[in-house]
C-alpha cells in the first residue's frame, strides 16, 4: 500500500486530477456561477503553461516570478477576449473563445523559435510536486467558495438566473461578468502552470476546444449550481478512468453519453443545488443514532 502511494503512477494520478479539478473550478466560476460559456479556456491553460515554461527554459528567473508573469499574461489575454463580447448576447463569448482557442494554437505552432512550434516545448524543469498540487487545490477551493458566497459571487448568480432582473437591481452586469471571466482565466492558467511543470513538456495540440468542453461537461455532471458537485465530478471523471487505464477516447464517449442523459433526465446535475458543509456531519450522526425518529 505504502509502495503504491509513493509510486510514480499514483503521484501522476494525483497531479493530473488536481490540475483538472483546478481547471474545472475555473470553469465553474464562469459557467456555473455566471452562466457564461467558454470553449476556449484550454487556450488560457496553454498561456499559463507556455508563458511560465518558456520563461523558465530561457531565463533563470525564480519559479514564483514566472508563475506571476504567466498569470498576468493570462489576465491580459482574458481582458482582450472579454472586453468586446461581454456586453453582447451570451453566445458571443462561446463563439469568440472558440476562435481564440484556434488562434492561440495557430500562434504557438508558428512561433517555433520560442515555443518549439508543433513539436512542443520540452525541457521545462519539474517544479510541481503532489503536495503543491493538492495544496493548490485546497487553496483554490477555499477561494472559490469564498467567492461564491461573497457579494460578487451573489451578483454573478443573480446575473446567471435573470440578467434583466439583475440589471434592474442595480448590478453592473458587464463589470461583474468581466471580473468573473478574468478570475476564471487566471485559475485555468494556474492549472496550466501546474500541468507544464509536472509533465515537463507541452505541445499546442493538447489545448484544443475538446479540453474546454470536457471541463464544461464535468461542471454539468456535478450540477451547475454546486461547487461541491463540480469538484467531485472532476475528481471522479478524471481520476477514476485514469486509475483504471481506460482508453482516452472511450472515456470521452462515456462522458458525453452521461451528460446527454443528465441533461435529458436530471438537468440540474447530480448534486443539484446542494453544497457540502460540515453541518451534514451532524445530520449523519443523527441518522445513525436514530434518536430523532423518522427524520427524512
Amino acid at each position: 500500500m505504502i509502495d503504491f502511494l509513493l509510486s510514480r503512477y499514483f503521484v501522476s494520478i494525483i497531479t493530473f486530477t488536481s490540475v483538472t479539478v483546478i481547471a474545472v473550478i475555473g470553469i465553474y466560476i464562469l459557467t456555473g456561477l455566471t452562466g457564461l460559456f467558454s470553449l476556449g479556456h484550454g487556450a488560457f491553460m496553454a498561456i499559463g503553461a507556455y508563458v511560465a515554461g518558456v520563461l523558465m527554459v530561457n531565463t533563470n528567473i525564480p519559479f514564483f516570478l514566472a508563475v506571476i508573469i504567466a498569470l498576468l499574461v493570462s489576465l491580459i489575454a482574458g481582458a482582450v477576449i472579454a472586453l468586446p463580447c461581454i456586453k453582447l448576447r451570451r453566445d458571443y463569448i462561446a463563439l469568440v473563445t472558440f476562435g481564440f482557442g484556434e488562434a492561440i494554437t495557430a500562434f504557438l505552432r508558428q512561433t517555433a523559435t520560442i515555443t518549439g512550434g508543433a513539436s512542443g516545448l520540452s525541457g521545462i524543469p519539474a517544479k510541481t510536486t503532489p503536495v503543491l498540487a493538492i495544496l493548490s487545490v485546497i487553496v483554490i477551493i477555499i477561494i472559490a467558495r469564498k467567492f461564491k458566497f461573497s457579494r460578487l459571487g451573489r451578483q454573478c448568480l443573480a446575473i446567471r438566473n435573470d440578467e434583466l432582473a439583475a440589471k434592474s437591481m442595480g448590478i453592473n452586469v458587464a463589470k461583474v461578468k468581466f471580473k468573473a471571466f478574468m478570475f476564471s482565466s487566471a485559475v485555468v492558467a494556474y492549472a496550466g502552470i501546474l500541468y507544464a511543470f509536472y509533465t515537463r513538456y507541452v505541445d499546442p495540440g493538447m489545448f484544443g476546444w475538446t479540453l474546454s468542453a470536457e471541463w464544461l461537461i464535468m461542471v454539468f455532471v456535478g450540477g451547475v449550481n454546486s461547487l461541491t458537485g463540480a469538484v467531485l465530478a472532476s475528481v471522479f471523471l478524471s481520476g477514476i478512468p485514469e486509475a483504471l487505464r481506460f482508453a482516452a477516447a472511450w472515456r470521452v464517449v462515456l462522458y458525453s453519453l452521461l451528460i446527454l442523459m443528465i441533461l435529458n433526465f436530471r438537468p440540474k446535475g447530480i448534486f443539484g443545488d446542494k453544497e457540502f458543509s460540515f453541518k451534514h456531519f451532524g445530520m449523519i450522526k443523527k441518522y445513525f443514532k436514530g434518536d430523532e425518529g423518522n427524520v427524512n
Partner: protein
Amino acid sequence: MFIAELLFYGLSLGAVYSLIAVGFALIFNILKFSNFAHGGFITVTAYVGYIAASIWQLPFWAALLVAIFFGGIIGVISEFIAFRRIRNTKGPIIYYFVSSITLGILLESLIRIFFGTTYYRYPYDFGGYLMNVFGNMMWISYLDVYMLLVSLITLAILLFILYKTKIGLAIRSLASDVDTAKLMGVDVTRIIQIVFFVAGVLAAVSGVFLAISYNLYPALGQIVVKGFIASVIGGLGSLGGAVIGALLLGFVEIFLLQTIGSGFSPIVIFIIMLVFLLFRPRGIAGVYVDTKA
C-alpha cells in the same frame, strides 16, 4: 492575375463556408442557440462520403448524395437524442447549448475511435486547366468550380424552400415566434426535424468538399469555427448576413494565404472578428439579437 485568382478561389471557399454559416444560422434562428454539434455533423458526413467513395467505390456525385442523405438522417437523430426532451420540458437555452457541445464531442470521438487519427484522401482527382485571363495564365481547379456551383445550387434550393413553399413559411414563422406558430397549427416538432435535416444536408455538402480539399481527419469539424466567424461578421441569426460574412471570410482567407501564409491566418482572422465585435457587434446585416433576459 492575382486579383482573378483571389476572386475565384475566395468565392469558392466562401461559398462552402456560407453553407456552414447558413446551417448554423438556421438552427440559431429557431431554437436560439449556437449549434456546436454542427462541426460533428461535418466530420461524420465527410467520413460517410469517404466510405462511399473509397470502399463502395461510388462516383463522386453518388458519394456526395450518400453523404447528403446520411447528413439529413444524422441531423434528425441528433434532434431526437439531444434536443427533443429539453424542448418538451422547456429547458433553458444553456441546456441546448451544453447538449450541442456534448453531441459535437461525442461525434468527433466516435470518429476517432473507429477511424483513428490518420489522414485519409478521397480517391478523386478533379484536375483543372490553365485559363488565359487577360494575357496571364491562371490555374482553374475543377474541384473549386464544383465547390462553387454545388454550394450555390444548394443555397438556391434552400432559399426556394424557405421563401416559396409552405414548409419554408412554417420555418420562418417558427423563427419569429414558436408559440404563436404552434397556435396557428404548425406542427412544431415536424418543422424542427426538417430544419435539422436541412442543417445536416448543408453540413454534408460542406464536409465532403472540405474533406476533398483538405484531406480527412477527425478534427475536420473544427472548420465550423469559420462558420461561426462568418456569422459573427455577417450578423448572428441572419441568413443573408451569414452568406455575405462567409464570402468575405473566403476572400480574406485566400488573400492571407497568398500574402502571409496559412499559419498566421487564423490569428489575423480572429483579430478581424474581435475588431468587428468591438465596432460593429451587430455584424454587416445589422440584425441585432440581444439577450432577452
